[in-house]
């Protein structure tokens, strides 16, 4: 039988790690967006291609949009 306290601590650690990974992805995309803006042509298309994944990462992992489909906490 698993210990609920240990399970909760592991779940907490897992979520914190996931948050850090998503954050790293967001930072990379944001910096990439800046670099592309300095170098590329057709910047508007690139900006859209880089901004949408950032918004999606935040909506899915930080805002838990999937909860709307009935998923619990």
């Amino acid at each position: 039988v698993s210990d609920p306290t240990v399970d909760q601590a592991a779940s907490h650690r897992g979520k914190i790690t996931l948050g850090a990974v998503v954050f790293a992805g967001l930072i990379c995309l944001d910096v990439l967006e800046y670099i592309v803006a300095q170098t590329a042509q057709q910047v508007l298309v690139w900006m859209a291609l880089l901004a949408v994944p950032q918004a999606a990462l935040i909506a899915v992992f930080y805002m838990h949009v999937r909860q709307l489909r009935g998923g619990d906490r």
Partner: protein
Amino acid sequence: MAAGVRELGQIETAEYRLRRNRLGLWLFIASESFLFAAIISARFYLLGTQRSEDLSQPLGLLISLVLLTSSLTAYRAETSAAHDDVRGFVRNTAATITLGLVFMGGVALEFREGLEAFPPDTLYGTAFFSLVGLHAFHVLTGLVALAAVLWVGRDGRFGSADYWPVEGVVKYWHFVDVAWVFIFPTLYLVK
């Protein structure tokens, strides 16, 4: 038996209330998204991909990174509240507020330069001050809401059993971040 049924009823009611709250917040966020989308569309309609060279792109990137970092601390604050970690909740909420204030400082700097370079009665000034001003107002209300949950929850009022106020405020804060993810390239990077 009757007590058991009542308890079950209360659990169902609490879950229903939580889902209703979430749906209401998401509808609010959707309506706010339309508002931001309308102003971003107006910017492109009026100016195409023109942008002012007076805006500091490095400063824009810096405040973007600050706001993204505040999303991480807000996420950690919510996760801490959900796992009965009061200290983590207080620490991360305070960090989020601090980062939000730093972001507002950066926006104030941009406003000061913007007022000289492209006054609000010019086309670019209208787009810039409408969009950044509206966003800054949302950041400000988010900061007030964060301060309120920090004050109420500082002694452990929010825990795994019920942390909806924290969840709601943090979701709103993330929305403010999502809005900026589109505003930053729209005003600072597009050419």
